[in-house]
């Protein structure tokens, strides 16, 4: 056993010493693996960031009701009567003023996307005091809250960052009416940070919605109360709305895009990994070929095949791991935390940040190690089986 270890040590030392001869080849493998890992991580961080923003938004104990088949807030239309009727339903939490519900409007206005300098759909949400209270983690980080009954609005930090024209104090004109940005809000990285908020009454009159709404959010006594509310809704033909927990709604909204990114990211990562694997195999076969005489000589003086095998495999794994490490560091430096925006499920822009996580880095590291292992095991096998006579052959 001890002798095996010293044999392996001798072979590894020999490999390391001969590495400079294959410096370019080895560097190419390291870089190839690094690039694969960085590309994969970029996609995973994108999917993860989008997922975290959108799916992390919904609460379990808030129900959201929309017109049947609407699928997204933007499509829905609800009448005042429906809102009132639903508010009278069971399982809804109450405070001194009655059931905690928020009927909201969700309309789309243009913003200019800084990244492309083109118009983009931004959601303008009309809501009331109750709606804001329902969102516990709302924070005004600059300026102040809008005054009910005025043409004032507040902007989410994401929207402010990615789009032009919503700086604090800016005046906006929508259909002859002037609006002023009076505050900037954050909401713990949730999707609402990509929105503009204003008073429900003002938005209703601007968009001539009379006394209609698009969605209603209802604070539940507890998540289980959703079933009661659903049953109540089904039983009344005037309602028949689609009701989901807010958490489910946003999970649905997130799935399409983040699945798409994942379905794009993994096959790409794997395809590129195959390319890098080809490079790694080439490097390692070359490594074995260039050390064939040394390996055979060691075999001739009594070294076992195992040492040659382990030495070669170790070289490959070290190269791949090094590549993986460089790739992960590059991904972290270049991609982690960068913000981007895309069209979300409600046909409006969702601002999100790329988010790397230890789990993602681990996945990429596994990919690198697989490249290193497969890239090393076949050449190692060849090294282990090199005929001893090679040592005695003319150069």
């Amino acid at each position: 056993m001890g002798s095996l270890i010293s044999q392996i040590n001798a072979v590894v030392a020999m490999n390391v010493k001969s590495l400079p001869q294959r410096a370019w080849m080895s560097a190419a493998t390291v870089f190839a693996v690094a690039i694969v890992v960085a590309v994969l991580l970029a996609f995973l961080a994108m999917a993860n960031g989008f997922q975290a923003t959108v799916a992390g938004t919904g609460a379990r104990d808030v129900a959201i009701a929309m017109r049947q088949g609407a699928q997204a807030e933007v499509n829905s239309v609800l009448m005042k009567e429906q809102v009132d009727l639903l508010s009278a339903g069971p399982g809804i939490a109450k405070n001194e003023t009655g059931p905690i519900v928020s009927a909201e409007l969700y309309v789309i206005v243009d913003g200019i996307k800084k990244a492309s300098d083109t118009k983009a759909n931004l959601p303008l949400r009309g809501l009331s005091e109750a709606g804001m209270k329902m969102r516990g983690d709302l924070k005004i980080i600059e300026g102040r809250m809008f005054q009910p009954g005025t043409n004032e609005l507040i902007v989410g930090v994401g929207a402010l960052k990615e789009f032009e024209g919503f700086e604090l104090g800016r005046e906006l004109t929508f259909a002859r009416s002037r609006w002023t940005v009076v505050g900037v809000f954050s909401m713990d990285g949730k999707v609402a940070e990509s929105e503009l908020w204003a008073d429900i009454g003002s938005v209703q009159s601007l968009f001539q919605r009379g006394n209609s709404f698009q969605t209603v959010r209802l604070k539940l006594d507890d998540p289980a109360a959703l079933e009661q509310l659903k049953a109540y809704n089904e039983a009344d033909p005037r309602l028949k709305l689609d009701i989901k927990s807010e958490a489910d709604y946003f999970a649905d909204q997130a799935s399409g895009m983040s699945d798409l990114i994942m379905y794009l990211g993994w096959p790409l990562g794997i395809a590129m990994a195959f390319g890098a694997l080809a490079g790694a195999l080439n490097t390692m076969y070359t490594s074995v070929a260039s050390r064939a005489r040394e390996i055979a000589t060691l075999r001739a003086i009594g070294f076992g095949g195992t040492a040659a095998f382990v030495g070669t495999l170790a070289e490959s794994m070290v190269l791949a791991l090094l590549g993986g490490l460089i790739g992960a560091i590059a991904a972290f430096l270049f991609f982690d935390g960068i913000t981007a925006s895309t069209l979300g499920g409600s046909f409006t822009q969702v601002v999100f940040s790329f988010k790397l996580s230890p789990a993602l880095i681990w996945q990429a590291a596994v990919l690198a190690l697989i490249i290193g292992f497969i890239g090393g095991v076949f050449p190692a096998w060849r090294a282990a089986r090199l005929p001893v006579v090679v040592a005695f052959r003319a150069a």
Partner: protein
Amino acid sequence: MSDLYLIFKNLTRRKLRLSLTLFAIFVAFLIFGVLSSFNKAFNSGIELSADDRMVVVNKINFTQPLPIAYVNKARAIEGIDVLTWCNWFGGYYQDPKNFVAAMACDAETLLDVYPEIVLPEDQKKAFMANRQGLIAGQSIAAKYGWKVGDRIPMNSNIFSQKTGGSAWDFDVEGIYTGSTEQFDTNSVYFHYKYFDESRSFGKDFAGWLILRTTDPALNDQVANTIDTMFANSFYETSTDSEKAFNKAFIAQIGNIAMIVTSVVGAAFFTILLIVGNTMVLAIRERTGEIAVMKTLGFPAARIFKLVLGESLLLSLIGGLLGIGAAWLIIGAMKAALAGILPTLVLTPDVALTALAIMVGLGFLTGIVPALSAHRLNIITAMSRQ
């Protein structure tokens, strides 16, 4: 025996190394072919847009409506050839998951504004004559198995009928194809009149107007006239060329072109390293042979060509296989993705770009070993043997 034979024999002498290198090139071009086609499909709206076609939308956002009265006012403007209007229906077929890109448009003018919609004459007539008629693109019709003469229900996730319910009944009167392969045949058009009369809210409003100018040179003038005409009204307009409008819309999804370029760039950079190194190595191993060929009287330029030819051939074989595979994959994905990317095809210009990259790659990976082979000194090479 020709030089090509020599190149081929040199290339294929180490089968394992050749296969691995070819495979790496194959993968890079596969990625290029697939991603570029995706990017193309995303951008096809820009590329296929007609120069003389313009879109008039509500200035607040294109999802906000415009009064139908604008149609007649705008039509009077000089420089407009034809004008139609549409309203987004938010359609789905049977299940909310079965999204249908359905639009209620003015049937009289729709086909004049979109000559790309190719419809047999009898189907055209039948569609015009039936106010509940609908024309469906070939690809969506195939997806749901609609045939001319079928009566189909379609739901809206936005609108509802005056009589209640969100389902409308339509007669499939025509199935259209595109005048080019890339034209979107995944949409559905029906009569605005039928839709407007039966919907429970939003009557007398249109989603957007589309027009063709008599001359693209008049585009800016027409846009200005329209937007000035409705300025300071409750429904201000924003008029853009179809191209600009589509461009902005695609930019909403994200900078896909940048993502594609980065990934493809990363893939090519990787194989540049791998193939470049392999070529250097392969030629270095052949130092003695090259010296012998030079001794036999092969001029340096010819040796240079043989080496460069080898890297070019390598790149071309791997690249063509990769693009071929991309073509097969895109072909297989086309049907599955018709709903999201109806114009997904591997176009000849993607293939041509790939070809140019193959030549570039072959050149870049071959130039260093080719130069060293060119410079190789017979005496030193032979004594090193």
